[in-house]
């Protein structure tokens, strides 16, 4: 299996976390994001939307990090961590549900904040405070839902760690480097859940690659 991307990309990290949870061998093929190689033809033939990561496994080429994690979790369903609850259709549906929540409710808000505080300065611009404020408010509301949910279950989809939790990890790690970490730390159930996610061996292997940091808060 080859993963094309850069370790500092949160979307790439999602895939790397999954590979480590499954103890799967892989090769990381670097794509120079600062030189925009992901927007150029050789890479575009793997992902016409010009985004990392892409994955090659024999004759299969995939992109979209959450499709890649689903593939890895399914292909290696009998080893490593059970990330999908595949043996029980109803539990599997709940994993899918909270994975959709991450993709549609959590990620847009947290991504907007990270983009302003970390990526925009790298492009030589100033963060837009209005965008940050609006999305912190949205993120707070999502985290209120999580706080209540995590009062009932240990992880988002039930009592075991699944893709629904994993998909949150890379952007949350970057978010905790900003001055807004209180959104997580001030919610006891969310905080406990986050600390648990950070203690996993797979996370400890991937987090050293998540090297960008906010230059401004």
């Amino acid at each position, binding site marked *: 299996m080859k993963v094309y991307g850069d370790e500092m990309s949160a979307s790439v990290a999602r895939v790397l976390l999954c590979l480590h949870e499954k103890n799967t061998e892989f090769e990381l093929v670097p794509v120079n994001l600062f030189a925009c190689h992901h927007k150029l033809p050789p890479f575009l033939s793997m992902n*016409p*939307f010009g985004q990392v990561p892409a994955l090659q*496994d024999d004759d*299969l080429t*995939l*992109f*979209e990090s*959450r*499709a*890649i994690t*689903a*593939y890895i979790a*399914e*292909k290696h369903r009998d080893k490593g961590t059970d990330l999908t609850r595949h043996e029980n*259709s*109803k539990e*599997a*549906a*709940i994993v*899918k*549900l909270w*994975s*959709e*929540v991450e*993709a*549609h*409710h959590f990620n847009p808000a947290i991504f907007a904040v990270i983009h302003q505080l970390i990526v925009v300065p790298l492009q030589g611009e100033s963060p837009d405070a209005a965008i940050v404020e609006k999305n912190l408010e949205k993120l707070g509301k*999502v985290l209120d*839902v999580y706080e*209540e*949910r995590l009062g009932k279950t240990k992880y988002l989809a039930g009592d075991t760690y699944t893709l629904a939790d994993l998909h949150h990890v890379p952007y949350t790690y970057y978010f905790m480097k900003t001055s807004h970490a209180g959104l997580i730390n001030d919610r006891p159930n969310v905080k406990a859940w986050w600390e648990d996610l950070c203690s996993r061996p797979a996370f400890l292997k991937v987090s050293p690659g998540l090297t960008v940091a906010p230059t401004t808060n």
Partner: protein
Amino acid sequence: MAGIKVFGHPASTATRRVLIALHEKNLDFEFVHIELKDGEHKKEPFTFRNPFGKVPAFEDGDLKLFESRAITQYIAHFYSDKGNQLVSLGSKAIAVIAMGIEIESHEFDPVGSKLVWEQVFKPLYGMTTDKTVVEEEEAKLAKVLDVYEHRLGESKYLASDHFTLVDLHTIPVIQYLLGTPTKKLFDERPHVSAWVADITSRPSAQKVL
């Protein structure tokens, strides 16, 4: 099977996604109308079903779900032996479907939904369509449809040679856009145009209009 309930609004694209999947599977279900204009979706008891206050919500016996694409995937897998096959077998085929679902969800739907909002729903609420937004979003949609055009030159449907959830998920937004000037973006691309005609003529798609 008794016990399936959908809580939603018949005009909602996300609700229609679930209804189309149920029709593809010939499943019986009860439809519980949630009155969006009264804000019913933002209040209890609906928010017990979806704390994010969006339609649809879903029930099958003791299983309670929300998020339309989680619901359609549950329907496709749990009822895999009923009606039309909406997914494929084998890890690689499933992965290609998963990828197609992500693309529709992250690239097609946000843009398509904005165009539907501006051109279909705003006028219904007495608001004015913002032509600048329409122009910007059509430019983005054109790029996504170029990717689809290329893909549909290689394969009859987006993820396979048979109709799957990847095609199904696009239907509600496409149905609305066909009634707007944005229709031209589909008409201008021959493979996309043929695919649109095919998927929107399915009996399941016709039933939600």
